[in-house]
């Protein structure tokens, strides 16, 4: 998995590529999210267009990041969720927990509204 990090105003956008299934890749996502939180970034968008699928390890890292950010008054929002990830979010009912957007611009703009 690859992570590309962009900044749009006060919003950090993480573009992920590959599969998120646990192991070293999942560790790097966990570390990236916590690096952002430690540096005071409270508004995060995770762009999943390049992620074919993820398993519960990937979901666990996203939900961990979401919880940590919400506790600090921030949020983690998802953009461009692929079909298989949408299915996994539905199975786990996490589609009710995350705010999900069709594109990254809308997800970034949602922090201003």
């Amino acid at each position, binding site marked *: 998995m690859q992570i590309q990090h962009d900044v749009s105003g006060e919003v950090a956008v993480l573009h992920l590529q590959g599969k998120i299934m646990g192991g070293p890749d999942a560790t790097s996502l966990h570390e990236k999210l916590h690096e952002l939180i430690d540096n005071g970034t409270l508004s995060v968008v995770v762009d999943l267009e390049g992620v074919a699928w993820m398993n519960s390890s990937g979901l666990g890292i996203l*939900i961990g990041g979401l919880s940590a950010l919400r506790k600090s008054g921030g949020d983690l929002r998802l953009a461009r969720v692929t079909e298989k990830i949408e299915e996994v979010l539905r199975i786990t009912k996490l589609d009710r927990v995350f705010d999900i957007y069709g594109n990254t611009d809308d997800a970034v703009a949602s922090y201003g509204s």
Partner: protein
Amino acid sequence: MKKATEKKYRSRIDAVVKAERLAGKVTKKLKISEPERVDICIAVTEAVNNAVEHGNKMLNDKFVTLLFEYSDDKLRITVEDQGEGFDLEAVENPLSPENLTKPNGRGLLIVDALMDNVEVSSSTTGTKVIMIKKR
């Protein structure tokens, strides 16, 4: 059922990546459709991850066995660990409101949803997960 392949992995976290690669190869060879291959790969990573982390507790002297068997109408995957087992009845429901934002506990739920039939048996000598996907 014909045996496609069987592998033993040490209880390290990279076993998940290796098992996913093997699942990809086996399902490609068996000409399973792409959406079903993805379901199988996800299910295999969930079961192997549980076996390594929760079953064998990442102990280096314990192994996880991954077996693929097939017939004309189904693929059967068995994941077995050498841990101390767990009480199936005590597993918390990950869909309960109080568990919804917990970082873990969703693996078996996902396996159950993506595969056609799943059987889990656990004893003090290990846990075995049998997953079936119809072809």
